[in-house]
């Protein structure tokens, strides 16, 4: 696919949302059915670049998110593939009735690329943070929920979203993300976790900007503590890669989840459901926002404050490694 391989240069010079915008223009060049919609956030979400290239396929609906998602649904019924971008907080809450009824219930081919997710709009405060969307969106039947780890992966997720029929929610951050991937030369499959580091002592399952933090923590833990930490990039929250989770339970018996989201309802909750139903004992800890409205600050400072950065992960891994989570070490006696 021409033009869809991203280089270090691209992701160093473009924010994650800019990579999204660029990807969209490339897709639009090849596919006449692709249209873009926003609600007065053409610049902020970077979807506006589509208007520069294909003005007849771009629709700014003004500051009216409910109408925005309803219009996108109507377009999808007529065979178009609408990409809709506004902030995550408005996509998942302000317009949720439309997302639920117009898009997900009717299983329409609308791609919601929601920006400024988690605490990435740091100083804007909780009216513009979004630490609830994963929990909300994964309860929408028919909907695929993706949280790419960086700009490169965002390009791959957007590409996959276009080429896969059905409603999609892709959650990305404001601004630049720490670069996880040096190039787009890797396999990205919706619903399939990516093992970034092999390990047998503990598994860190992370999504979004927390994946980079997990990898950095794993490197340190190997160097300083001699621990072999498996890191799973769980870029798709729904459908969740249950197999990778149960394999981690079996192989490493300790799991930590890390996400820029409320600890309730998100990646950690989803993973814990799989573990609980799997019937195998496992040391487990969720890292995320502890059911509170965040303080304001720069994104990286907030990640540090809530322990979802490298330091927070290091502390938690050491805590879990020292914990005895079952009476004996015999795996086979578990139900």
């Amino acid at each position, binding site marked *: 696919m021409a033009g869809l391989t991203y280089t270090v240069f691209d992701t160093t010079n473009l924010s994650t949302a800019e990579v999204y915008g660029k990807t969209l223009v490339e897709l639009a060049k090849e596919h006449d059915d692709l249209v873009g919609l926003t609600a007065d956030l053409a610049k902020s979400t970077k979807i506006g670049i589509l208007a520069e290239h294909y003005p007849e*396929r771009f629709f700014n609906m003004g500051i009216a998110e409910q*109408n925005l998602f309803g219009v996108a*649904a*109507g*377009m999808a019924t007529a065979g178009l593939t*609408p990409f809709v971008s506004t902030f995550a907080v408005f996509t998942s809450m302000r317009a949720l009735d*439309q997302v639920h009824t117009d898009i997900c219930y009717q299983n329409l081919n609308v791609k919601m690329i929601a920006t400024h997710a988690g605490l990435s709009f740091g100083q804007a405060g909780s009216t513009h943070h979004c630490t609830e969307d994963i929990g909300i969106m994964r309860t929408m039947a028919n909907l695929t929920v993706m949280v790419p780890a960086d700009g490169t992966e965002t390009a791959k997720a957007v590409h996959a979203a276009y080429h896969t029929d059905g409603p999609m929610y892709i959650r990305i951050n404001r601004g630049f993300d720490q670069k996880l991937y040096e190039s787009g030369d890797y396999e990205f499959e919706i619903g399939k976790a990516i093992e970034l580091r092999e390990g047998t002592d503990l598994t860190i399952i992370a999504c979004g900007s927390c994946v980079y933090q997990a990898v950095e923590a794993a490197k340190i833990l190997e160097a300083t503590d001699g621990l072999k930490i498996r890191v799973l990039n769980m870029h798709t929250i729904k459908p969740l890669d249950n197999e990778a989770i149960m394999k981690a339970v079996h192989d490493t018996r300790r799991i930590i989840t890390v996400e820029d989201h409320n600890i309730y309802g998100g990646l950690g909750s989803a993973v814990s459901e799989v573990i609980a139903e799997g019937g195998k004992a496992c040391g487990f800890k969720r890292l995320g926002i502890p059911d509170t409205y965040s303080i304001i600050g720069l994104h990286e400072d907030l990640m540090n404050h809530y322990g979802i950065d490298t330091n927070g992960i290091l502390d938690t891994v050491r805590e879990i490694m020292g914990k005895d989570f079952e009476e004996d070490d015999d795996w086979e006696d578990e139900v």
Partner: protein
Amino acid sequence: MALHKEVLINLENKAHELRHLCLNTVVWAGSGHVGGSLSSMDIMTVLFHKHMTVDPKNPKWEDRDRFILSKGHCGVGFAPVLADKGYFDKELLKEYNHTGSPLGMHLDSTKVPGVDASTGSLGHGLPIALGMALAARVTGKKYMTYCLIGDGECDEGVIWEAAMSISHYKATNVITIVDRNKCMMDGKTEDIMQLEPFADKWRAFGFEVMEIDGNNIVAIDEALSTAKDFKEKPVVIIAHTTKGCGVNFMEDNYRWHYGGLDEDKLKEAQNSLDSHYETRMKGA
């Protein structure tokens, strides 16, 4: 062009037949939103039997005209229209509301042929209709999109979001029709949440407003004919209707927004419909 007498009589007969089928459906369903179904039956009849180009055997035909029942609770009115038109077997109406039936209170576009959008949560239909209209612009299609909204539904802010954007995008290929029966669930619209000056509101949003008797076949036909050709700005047809139109004990009575009919009430309603029809035919 004036409606040919024969066509008018056929439409009157069809509307009468569909009102009966609606009452029967309410009985089969156990209960339903009968008041608003009867108020809007003349509009749906004229749309499906005179103005819309559709193919019931090919309900997803991409060039078809679209119809969105934004007041989605009136499924017991809409489903009979679709069944009678040939989208599905009329016998299916007897399973309305039954466990696992494709036909429920609010019709599901993924299960019921002819339903262009799943509606029920109010205010959703008009944005979807605009999306269909804008899609026609992108794809070069000539189809029209008709959206029937309730007057009480206009309390929803998103109706006005959609109105603003229909006007902004000069989407003259979507025609908005308001079933102005002046009743809602809890009472009269003007008592619960004042809508008047209603026409002025639509004008202020950039619409050409046509106010008609929405239970008069000739008036509906004329309004739709004019609206389809009007390209200066988008049109809203405010169809002044009577809630429960045709059944004397339901007429203009908001308590019949939703209800059921026992055997005696059904008989009484059917007799009333027949008298209503006879009166209308004298004028036809």
